[in-house]
């Protein structure tokens, strides 16, 4: 695992692509701050959502997750390692400055309470021709420790089952499909989210990371007044849980995406829902944490009540 913030994450993009191509399990934490460039150091932002998806060049798939409180940060971090090992992929943890600088209670579970995924190792014996990049039927790739009993080549170039560079169209086509399909075909399986009062929600808030704290506050407050608000808190951002978001939004009068950027997840939500015109943005981009009042003001505008 390695951890950084905005500009450091930009510097890591080349090696991130290498890890995707060479199928190296690893976890990268980006505690987001405002950008572009050095931007606004140690102030809150959620501006790196699309960078996590497309920051490194070339077609690829990636897992990115987030959380809104320290207990969830703990759980999601363990989950990130499990997914990295299962799918042999980098997993990005997109936390943000607010969660990063906050102090709050954390209960560390006893070892064994949270299931851990062990690295899948090859059963091929030493001295036998080992194919480090030949996936099993289920798409998983058993590993032999580098420098151990098998000698093989690792490269960032498109490569065959021995890990040797290849520009053979069939090899390139199959490898790219393998890299993308192993995650994109499991979007539902990879989706982690929490939901609050969704059963009868007329107004659905979608949020993630620190912004979800304010969104949840609004939902709970309005419920006390009998207003039917609900919150879908996303923890998996990539691959985007499109089926889940589409289903949850189906019955809502309006959907409000609460985030601290100019609408990076808003765009994804609009792409997957049946009625994109009913999706609105409640955001803040000035380095200040979005408050429940900020959200309520936009909510009133959507209801036609004025601020």
């Amino acid at each position, binding site marked *: 695992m390695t951890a950084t913030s905005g500009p450091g994450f930009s510097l890591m993009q080349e090696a991130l692509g290498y890890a995707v191509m060479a199928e190296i399990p690893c976890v990268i934490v980006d505690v987001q701050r405002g950008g572009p460039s050095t931007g606004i150091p140690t102030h809150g932002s959620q501006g790196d959502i699309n960078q996590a998806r497309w920051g490194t060049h070339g077609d690829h798939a990636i897992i990115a997750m987030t959380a809104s409180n320290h207990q969830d940060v703990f759980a999601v971090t363990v989950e990130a390692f499990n997914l990295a090992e299962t799918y042999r992929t980098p997993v990005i943890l997109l936390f943000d400055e607010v969660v990063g600088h906050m102090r709050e209670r954390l209960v560390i579970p006893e070892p064994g309470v949270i299931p851990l995924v062990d690295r899948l190792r090859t059963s091929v014996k030493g001295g036998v021709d080992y194919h480090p990049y030949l996936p099993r039927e289920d798409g998983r790739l058993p590993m032999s420790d*580098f420098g151990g*009993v098998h*000698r093989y*080549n*690792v*490269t960032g*170039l498109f490569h065959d089952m021995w890990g*040797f*560079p290849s520009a053979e169209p069939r090899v390139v086509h199959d490898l790219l499909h393998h890299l993308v399909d192993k995650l994109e075909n499991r979007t539902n399986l990879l989706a982690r989210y929490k939901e609050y009062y969704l059963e009868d929600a007329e107004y659905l808030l979608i949020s993630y990371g620190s912004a979800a704290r304010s969104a949840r506050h609004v939902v709970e407050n309005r419920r006390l007044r009998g207003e039917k608000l609900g919150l879908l808190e996303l923890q998996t951002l990539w691959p985007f849980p499109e089926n889940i978001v589409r289903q949850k939004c189906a019955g809502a009068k309006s959907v409000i995406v609460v985030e601290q950027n100019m609408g990076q997840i808003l765009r994804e939500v609009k792409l997957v829902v049946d009625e994109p015109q009913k999706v609105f943005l409640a955001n803040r981009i000035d380095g200040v944490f979005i408050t429940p009042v900020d959200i309520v003001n936009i909510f009133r505008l959507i209801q036609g009540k004025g601020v």
Partner: protein
Amino acid sequence: MAVRDYLRERFFPHLWCPGCGHGMVLNGMLQAVEKLGMSKNEIVMVSGIGCSARISGYVDFHTLHTIHGRALAFATGVKMSRPELNLIVPMGDGDALAIGGNHFIHAARRNIDITAIVMNNRIYGMTGGQFSPLSGPGIRATTAPFTNIDYSFDVVELAKAAGATFVARTTSYHVQQIADIIKKAILHEGFSVVEILSQCPTYFGRKNKAGDAVDMVRWFKNNTTPIGSKAKQENPDLIERGIFVQTERPEYCSEYDKIVGIAMRGQN
């Protein structure tokens, strides 16, 4: 074991141009490994990007073909986790000293037990003949059609100043010396730098009217001399060959082991 047995012949033919010096470097390097009687399982070869970097694919060791300039960073990771393995890192001049310059000086500063080989053909070959930090002034390249104005690094002086504890230079003409020096570099415990002047007839040779591969190799023969030779005193323009530095300094992984020991004290 014969030198041939260290090759992955299934992946031949190699991609180097006819007359390229990199195959001569590969030959000398494998002779060194053969003379040391090393098994294929105890060697890790890490390379970056460029013509030189493809060398790792052709040898039957544990091989890691990484990203441009970062071969030493990856090699540091491998060495730290598996200090019992021997790390050999062949790099081109651009790979080692332009984008990889920072990793180069810091690996030298740490004195981590890695054998770094700079295959210096003074040009970026794979990308089409751009000048490198080792081209030097007056040299023509695709990106310097009216000659280059950048002064070059002296790999030996740079490695010495950065703290490398083994520093040597030879050329692709002197294949026996390549084998001899790399043998000593592998045995040396600490960061070893071996600069090997290599010819690129395709770009450097063509742009600078240096003749064909044979002419370029002959130039290495006629313009280099052993360290401290009489010829050097008479002609200061000659390039010296041989081992410039061979000193002892605590090695990084063993120092790190000591720190781990201190940190673990009282915890068991």
